């Protein structure tokens, strides 16, 4: 009986931990000045980027993670789907015309990031 109580408590704790670990992340906005390097490794680093309205900003994606999940980056609102070859810098130039938050993700929509236009 004791083992069952223990499993229930440990399991419950683990669920809370998983929720906090994966879904309770705090956003840290990184402001891009003309250009910004984004490391593609187990996700995007930084994953929340602030770029200015109406100005040209270059996002340089650099993928070091061989996972095929991350081999493409999609910035749908800007009509961009780009292949990110391993260990190669891929530059994406954005000139946002409207303010707002625009999501970006990997090709299979597993890893996410956000572009904040202000």
């Amino acid at each position: 009986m004791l083992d069952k109580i223990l499993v229930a408590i440990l399991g419950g704790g683990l669920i809370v931990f998983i929720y906090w670990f994966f879904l309770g992340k705090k956003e840290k906005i990184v402001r891009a000045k003309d250009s910004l390097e984004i490391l593609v490794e187990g996700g995007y680093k930084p994953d929340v980027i602030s770029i200015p309205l109406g100005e040209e900003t270059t996002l340089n994606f650099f993928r070091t993670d061989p996972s095929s999940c991350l081999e493409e980056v999609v910035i749908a609102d800007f009509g961009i789907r780009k292949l990110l070859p391993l260990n190669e810098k891929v530059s994406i130039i954005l000139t946002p015309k409207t303010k707002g938050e625009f999501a970006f993700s990997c090709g299979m929509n597993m890893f996410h990031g956000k572009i904040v236009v202000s």
Partner: protein
Amino acid sequence: MPPTKQNFLIRGMHCASCVQLIEKSLKKTPGILEASVNLATERATIVYNSEECSIDNLTKSVDAAGYKLINEPSSVSNDDEKKEKERELNDLKIKAAFSLAIGGLIFWATLPTLKETSPSFLQNFWVQLLLAAPVQFWAAASFYRATILAIKHRNANMDTLVTIGTTAAFIYSVLVLIFPAFFKGQGLTAEPYFDTSTIIIGLILLGRFLEARAKSQTSEAIKKLIGLQAKTARVLRGSMDSFGFAQDGQVLSSREEVDILIGEVVVGDLIIVRPGEKIPVDGVITEGLSSIDESMVTGESMPADKKAGDLVIGATINKTGSFVFRATKVGQETMLSQIIKLVQEAQGSKAPIQRLADLISSYFVPIVLMTAIVTFIMWYILGPVPSFTYAFLNTIAVLIIACPCAMGLATPTAVMVGTGLAAQKGILIKNAKALEIASKIKAIVFDKTGTLTYGKPKVTDLIPFDNWSQDSLLQWSASIEKSSEHSLAEAIVNEGKTRGVEFLTLSSFEAIPGKGVKGVIEGRQVYFGNRSLVEEYLQGDPLRFSLASQRASELESQGKTVMYLVIEKKLVGLIAVADTLKESAKETVKALQNIGVSVFMITGDNQRTALTIGQMLGMKEENVLAQVLPAQKEEKIKELQKNNQLVVMVGDGINDAPALALADLGIAMSTGTDVAMEAADITLVNKDLKSVVATINLSKKTLQTIKLNLVWAFGYNILLIPVAAGVLYPLFGILLNPIFASLAMALSSVSVVSNSLLLKRAKI
């Protein structure tokens, strides 16, 4: 001029210091703003100011460092990508085959019914450990790497689930092997699950291999378009004179022909193209004539005859004659490059239908992890004996069966295939949203002139009165119309030129908006225009006017536009002009009506003419919107939208750009000019009216595919995760073996991608 960014192949590199050397040498060259060299891909990306620095300078700079720069077209990088993909596929294939072979052996030695037929050494659990270890740590290494990197960034994906599931099975098996007594003491059978861990890895790798192979086919259309690009151009260098063709098409020239790489062609270059050759860039023919097959770019199957002054499109094939043309658009400016860019953008965009899948997949993996823990707790507390074994196997099954990939792939793969297929047929779809709207439209408005008709009106009838001849009627009408900008004026002036009439001098001219023109010729007051103009300016002789009106009505009921010539307040004749309907117009209207779409026509023509054309096309009377000035087209679209209909506007994209933009979906019949492509959601570069029907059919089929994919992907996860968790056990005693879970998971994403690929076979 903005800086040029270009990618070059570098030969001769062998270590990281080579990279430094080349970058250093390039950065010292005047005009180079940025240079980045990649050893792995043997490529250099150089940003330079083309006014200060030429490709020759770049080559010399790399030469000076002791390496070789090769300027090759972008298709080369596609070859690199292809090789990289092939290498990846090969790697997956080897690992999947190895894991499945090992898994099969272990499975043979553990399955109660088959066990006895296997060699005894295979039944030894330590041998099984030796066999399973390379599968776990070599074949599945990519899962571990991806999981560790993702966890470091507090992310989780497919790999996380596979890693946790298979690692749990493997570690449990190792512990059973080391401490069998402990497990027996807990009432468990001390049997390892090496078969489970290895077969799961093998099947998932196999699924990934099949998925990657199928996925690469979804972008085939764009690769084909990129592959169309010519690699070299034969440019004429030297003086501009002494050039011509002999009768057999041979070029007679003292000028030198130089074969250069496509990247080196500049605007203004004179390029020679011989029969069977590919036209390298866009331009205008300066000498010679030929028949050109443009099907690969525009989808238009009939070859087009071209002569001096006509436009040619890069990547199309010269069929018969030799000609010289002047390059007007090169590099990213060519029509092919614009089409590629548009298709790439469309494939990168998201369809609104994808929103829900996006929302769910962003929470999916953590939710599956939590579900797996709940499964373990429930089975451990409430499950039958041995509860640990049930809890453990069902938890693994939950982790393994979950397939977020299928949800992520459901929409984009279908959009990629759909937009690619459309591009091959000369239908350029700007984004996935346009594709989705096209499948739901209820009303379609065609602009008449230039869309349903050829847009080139011709004089059909000349009816003079009194002692006026047809030629004199045409002479006076053409003379006054020469100063008019109205589209019908061109028809009358052209007819005058064809018949060789002598144009009279016009001493004054004034346009009367919506009615016609007036002017003075040889001191006589002349009016030329429609019925309302005549009613206002013609005085006296009501009998003649009545007879003329009757004749005009007859002509209008044949779909012709009638104009009246009045000289010194006396009606002297009528001229009828008609635009020819395109052969495919009637068929298109009928096909659209057959699929339940209301078809409208919008025109500036008078009611009677418009109605006649409407009738010829089989349209309903109330769907003919006549006497609409260009500026009023938007208003008409708004009125239709008020009836809660999704409205499509089909026009030429130039004078109806505001209406195209206002409609829920704008379709431009265009040659791919920037203006039209900017304003429209869909551009028909093949200029074929039937493509409007094809667009709607294709979008409906793409949406059906997306919906089926989403139902499958959601249904699969919603139904099978609970089954894997064991919800059917209390009632039916059904449990899902983790091996079957991995098989289902491997097949789910493959089926989604394969279903999208089926679109390629769609008849549109």
